[in-house]
């Protein structure tokens, strides 16, 4: 019996003695049969204050005292009356009942206190998290708070990492069993490590950080003395983990939104810049061309006006190419995919190229449609035709399309001197003009644009000398994934 229990027993016996003394003093004024009711008081009080044990002690002592002092024959301990037995049993029953009731109340109160403490801890946790918006600061706040609440070291590790996003106190990297436990915890979405059913030998104890879209990582806890940092399944730990996970997810989403907004803004600025440069360069050209058209009608020297006109047009093409190249290099191409009929595409390109009438076309009208950006493909064809015409030494240019395996190929061929051996890949590089060829005119951008646009749409373009005859062939490969099946 410890000190507290001894003291409680002394109090209990004192109460029984006091009631007995009171009863003796009042003897004759209250009926002896009512005395047993008086003993209910010490029994109930002892059971209420000190629990079942003291209740039983009080009940037993009361029964003995009642029997000894008040039940005839008095000053003897004899129970020979059924009424007395009932009294003893009733007193003990009251002791049991009262102590049970009290114990229940007490455990409820304890639970309420614990819940209040948990809520306070959660509220403070939430307050701390609310102040942080970026992930690292947030993880740091989570660790600091978790370390404080659970009186343990804490760390946050994200899915697929072994270096914690944050830890309190600082921690380098997870290894061995601890890393396994963390990964296991993230995979299973439950708990693992020290103090749990899986990988108990690990130093750290992990709880998953669950969000509606999956487990983002794990919160790890460990104590210096090696004891399990949390017992069983502490509801506080689950709530903390859920809150931490939501906060981390929110921070990740916010970061993505910011990134997207920044990208969009950059795209917008670039687009605005490109279109304003285009506009500024073209407006004077428009005036020059319109003026040359006027001159054609009024000036006698037609050759001079024609030169003015054709040079202005050439300048316009160069500007267009320059802008296209900037778009490619800046990664500012936005695709507008639609099913394109190659017959349409080739016919439109030939209409926009000078001397297009002289090109021989072999594009069957029953090829599959191809999912392309019509405008980019138009520029590709114009550049290829223009290139073939310039290097074709006046011989006819041909455009041929055909099924090739699962896909379709489209080749633009000239009958010029062809490409110097080994230069086939280099022709697509920016500003490349091949030595030893009669490459005149052009900015050296046309073929680089062809390649940039083709790759943006998922096409492959290659250059080679023709096998059948003199000249170069530029071949676009349109892969099967881009073909659109159409019912005839």
């Amino acid at each position: 019996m410890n000190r507290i229990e001894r003291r409680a027993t002394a109090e209990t016996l004192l109460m029984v003695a006091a009631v007995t003394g009171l009863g003796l003093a009042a003897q004759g004024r209250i009926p002896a049969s009512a005395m047993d009711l008086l003993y209910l008081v010490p029994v109930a009080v002892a059971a209420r204050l000190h629990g079942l044990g003291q209740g039983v002690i009080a009940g037993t002592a009361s029964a003995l005292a009642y029997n000894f002092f008040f039940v005839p024959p008095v000053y003897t301990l004899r129970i020979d009356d059924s009424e007395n037995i009932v009294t003893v049993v009733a007193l003990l029953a009251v002791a049991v009942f009262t102590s049970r009731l009290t114990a229940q109340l007490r455990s409820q109160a304890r639970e309420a206190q614990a819940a209040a403490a948990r809520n306070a801890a959660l509220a403070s946790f939430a307050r701390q998290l609310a102040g942080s918006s970026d992930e690292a600061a947030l993880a740091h706040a989570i660790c600091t708070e978790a370390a404080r609440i659970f009186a343990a070291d804490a760390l946050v590790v994200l899915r697929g990492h072994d270096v914690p996003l944050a830890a309190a106190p600082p921690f380098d990297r997870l290894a061995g069993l601890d890393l396994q436990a963390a990964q296991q915890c993230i995979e299973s979405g439950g708990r693992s490590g020290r103090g749990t059913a899986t990988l108990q030998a690990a130093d750290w104890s992990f709880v998953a950080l669950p969000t509606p879209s999956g487990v983002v990582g794990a919160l790890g806890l460990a104590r210096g003395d090696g004891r399990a940092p949390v017992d069983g399944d502490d509801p506080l730990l689950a709530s903390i983990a859920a809150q931490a996970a939501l906060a981390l997810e929110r921070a990740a989403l916010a970061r993505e939104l910011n990134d997207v907004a920044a990208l969009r803004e950059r795209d917008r600025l670039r687009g605005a810049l490109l279109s304003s440069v285009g506009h500024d360069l073209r407006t004077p050209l428009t005036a020059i061309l319109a003026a040359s058209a006027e001159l054609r009608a009024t000036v006698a020297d037609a050759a001079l006006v024609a030169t003015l006109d054709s040079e202005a047009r050439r300048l316009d093409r160069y500007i267009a190419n320059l802008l296209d190249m900037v778009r490619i290099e800046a990664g500012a191409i936005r695709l507008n995919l639609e099913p394109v009929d190659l017959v349409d595409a080739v016919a439109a390109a030939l209409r926009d190229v000078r001397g297009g009438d002289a090109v021989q076309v072999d594009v069957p009208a029953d090829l599959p449609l191809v999912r392309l950006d019509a405008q980019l493909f138009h520029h590709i064809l114009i550049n290829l035709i223009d290139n073939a015409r310039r290097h074709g030494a006046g011989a006819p240019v041909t455009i041929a399309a055909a099924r090739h395996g699962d896909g379709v190929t489209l080749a633009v061929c000239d009958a010029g001197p062809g490409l110097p051996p080994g230069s086939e890949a280099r022709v697509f590089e920016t500003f490349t003009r091949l030595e030893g060829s009669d490459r005149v005119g052009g900015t050296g951008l046309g073929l680089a644009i062809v390649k940039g646009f083709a790759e943006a749409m998922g096409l492959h373009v290659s250059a080679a000398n023709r096998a059948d005859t003199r000249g170069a062939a530029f071949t676009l490969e349109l892969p099967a994934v881009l073909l659109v099946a159409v019912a005839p």
Partner: protein
Amino acid sequence: MTGARILIVDDELHIRRLLRASLERAGYAIAEAVTARELLSVLPIEQPDLVLLDLGLPDRDGLELLPLLGAVPVIVVSARESVEEKVAALDLGAVDYVTKPFDSDELLARVRAALRQRRATQSSAAVVRVDDIEIDLDERSVRRSGAEVHLTPKEYGLLAALAAHPGRVITHGQLLRSVWGPAHAANTEYLRVTVRGLRAKLEADAAAPRLILNEPGVGYRLAK
């Protein structure tokens, strides 16, 4: 339609001056506006037969103005060459789109077509002829060198939509909406297949079309 009145809307003095010179020489009467505000204020006074509209006006985007111009045909003359801008302008009711720098002869041809179109709508020409093709919009019949050609309903619908405005680009969206219905406005493949069918029946060489012409990414037009 010599004597028609054309309103030039552009903030560049040189462009206005040159457009005026070539259009006046072709016999048109010219009015000018420099800003969107000026365009909207002179429109009811000048009552032009055609507006040449630059999209990059200083005070308002030209695309916003298109719906405000009522029944006057508008040719957009712009340095903006993106397909999206063209489609947007045509869908908003522009009859044509010319990119700067333009060829003066080409521009004059487009102006003539737009004005002829306006007159044609007023007198509702029922028979459209292109080379050896004759499209009778009243009888809903098509002849090639005098012989009747049998078309499917979609083929005829598409041809009629194009023939209602010869020479004018009709956007993919406009064609799909009018022939297949609004639910199919994005089904460009229907359009491609039907155009193939029409070409097979009407073109001399279906692989080198001369009747139904493609504007890459924008739409189709019937040759004039």
